[in-house]
């Protein structure tokens, strides 16, 4: 085992700048979309008084929980003492911070009055889980920066593990908190489930890791840096486990919902005749985000092929967006059950007449805003790896540390 050397990303300037150019133009278009929505008001979006959170929130929540999941890689290295993962730590921290910035930006720019952000940062209602999340997010940022410092600077090394542990717990709190934003909404049947919080945690693991792997593979390939099979297959296996866990929680979520007879209609709607939501559930969430990636990952031949592994990561991401679409938007589209035992014949405000779901179809500006958040995250990452030493020179098998620490200390649960 050699000493791991970190180097700035040295792709040719033309390539680098065209990458930045593409990202910047996506961001520019998103900025225009934001200006348009802000100037006109939200009527230019598909969001309404029935479906109040739309595609921007799907992207924002996706990016925020992925941020937490991306940090997982660093945690495994420091907290669970897996030396093999240590060289991956810096990128993990950077990506976590970048994804969080992207997600928060989308969230903030979708506010009805974004210019009042100062109000949100200075007046708090401590009963609101949303307000707590503001702390969780800013704290996460600070901790990730400290964590990066402890990984990169020799002076920080003694604190590395302690900070890593704090970061791990903070990260769990953050995703639990994000899940709880929805889980505490007793008003809406589909959200009213404590299991949403842990489900968001496993989702964050899967989506964060998928993004991490894609970024890692892309940046290494562009710069001709080697990634050994040992680490790559490790990450791949980990992804498989996370995707399986998401599956498990999805199942438990629906089973717990089915436990109460009052939710039969909801589950039936979602699984059978919820239109786009049913489609996204089965095709997006289950098939694209679950079965196909699992098939690839555990396939004896494709599972060893880098392109296939990258494809699996991409599919997990698409599946992740679908699942959040179903969770966030589908749950709002399903009518609130205000009058059990009664059928609504007429309503002046779309109260689910004859059980009909509310309609929502995303408009271009809000989708562009969401993409803008993704582009910001990638831009921050691209600039970060270019100017600072985030990426190891090589992750080839022979330079990588052993799986376990020499002390043979058991690192139970590293992959759970």
């Amino acid at each position, binding site marked *: 085992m050699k000493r791991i050397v970190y180097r700035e990303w040295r792709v040719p300037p033309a390539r680098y700048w065209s990458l930045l150019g593409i990202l910047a133009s996506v961001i520019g278009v998103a900025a225009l979309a934001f200006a348009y929505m802000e100037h006109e008001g939200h009527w230019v979006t*598909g969001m309404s008084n029935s479906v109040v959170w739309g595609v921007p929130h799907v992207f924002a929540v996706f990016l925020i929980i992925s941020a937490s999941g991306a940090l997982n890689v660093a945690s495994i290295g420091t907290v669970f003492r897996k030396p093999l993962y240590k060289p991956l730590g810096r990128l993990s921290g950077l990506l976590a911070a970048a994804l969080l910035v992207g997600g928060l930006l989308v969230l903030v720019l979708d*506010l*009805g009055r*974004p210019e009042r952000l100062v109000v*949100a940062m200075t007046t708090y*209602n401590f009963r609101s889980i949303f307000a707590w999340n503001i702390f969780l997010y800013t704290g996460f940022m600070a901790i990730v920066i400290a964590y990066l410092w402890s990984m990169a600077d020799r002076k920080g090394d003694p604190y590395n593990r302690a900070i890593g542990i704090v970061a791990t717990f903070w990260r769990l709190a953050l995703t639990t908190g994000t899940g709880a934003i929805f889980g505490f909404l007793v*008003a809406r049947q589909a959200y009213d489930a404590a299991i949403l919080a842990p489900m968001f945690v496993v989702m964050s693991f899967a989506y964060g890791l998928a993004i991490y792997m894609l970024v890692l593979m892309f940046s290494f390939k562009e710069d001709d840096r080697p990634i050994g099979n040992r680490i790559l297959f490790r990450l791949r296996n980990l992804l498989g486990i996370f995707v399986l866990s998401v599956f498990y929680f999805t199942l438990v979520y629906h089973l717990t919902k089915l436990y109460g007879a009052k939710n039969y209609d909801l589950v039936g709607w979602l699984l059978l005749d919820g239109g786009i939501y049913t489609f996204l559930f089965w095709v997006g969430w289950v098939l694209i985000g679950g079965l196909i990636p699992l098939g690839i990952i555990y396939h004896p031949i494709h599972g060893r092929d880098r392109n296939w592994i990258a494809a699996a990561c991409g599919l997990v991401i698409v599946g992740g967006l679908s699942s959040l679409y179903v969770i966030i938007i589908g749950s709002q589209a399903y009518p609130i059950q*205000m009058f059990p035992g009664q059928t609504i014949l007429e309503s002046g405000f779309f*109260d689910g007449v004859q059980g009909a779901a509310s309609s929502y179809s995303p408009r271009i500006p809000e989708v562009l805003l969401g993409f803008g958040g993704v582009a910001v995250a990638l831009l921050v990452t691209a600039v970060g790896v270019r100017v600072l030493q985030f990426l190891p020179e090589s992750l080839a098998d022979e330079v990588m540390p052993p799986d376990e620490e020499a002390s043979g200390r058991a690192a139970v649960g590293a992959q759970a």
Partner: protein
Amino acid sequence: MTDHHESNTGPAECGPSQPDRRTFMATAAGVTAALVAPGVIMHSVAGPRTEAVTSDVRWGLLVDTAKCADGCSACIEACDRENGLDLQTQPSGAQPTRWENQKSVWIRKVKLQDNQTGRVTNLPLMCQHCEHPPCVDVCPTGASFKRADGIVLVDRHTCIGCRYCMMACPYKARSFVHEVMSNQLTRVPRGKGCVESCTLCVHRRDYGEESTACVDACQAAGHEAIIFGDLKDPESPIRMRLAELASRQIREDLALNTGVRYAGF
């Protein structure tokens, strides 16, 4: 779930403090006098409020659905006029069906049919002015708040338009202003990017008028299906009526102790 013991366990359970009962009675007497002598304008009796509201009163509504007429929309039109909601215009380029779902609605009519008996019920639905409002709990900046007299409001100077309160409201009672407004009424400021809902005609409360626009309109239309009043005053018409009728809260299971009660279904 019908609650036959409304007068003991209902909205008044939040313990009316007695000392101010006498002042209230005096006002009530004034109200009665005004009703007897219709020439007297109400606000000249109570005038604009000089002291901050207290929790000696809790405003609420009782809807007698048996009297709520099918096809009547007097309360809605009155509310729209009172609060300037009739001044909303569909932005040019907006798709009409989507816009229907994006414009502000503070009060709406719902028509229900019992799955078992087939009985049809009409009722107006608006902010239920909960004692434990979920919107207030979730609001990150504290812009959603419950005024001391029980009215649930949005302070639109601190509302950032995150819409979490709308996610949390079990009654879908809140609206987000989706478009740039102009031509607002002086008494009801409202504008793009904030959330709003029924205020129980808060300006009327503060200028000492005795009821809300929807209640007046319902009465004028000859139905008298809605009663407005102080839920903490056992002598108030609304409490008397609550004692007579079997009433219930919508989503009683959430134990929000709503300020709006429904009878007759």
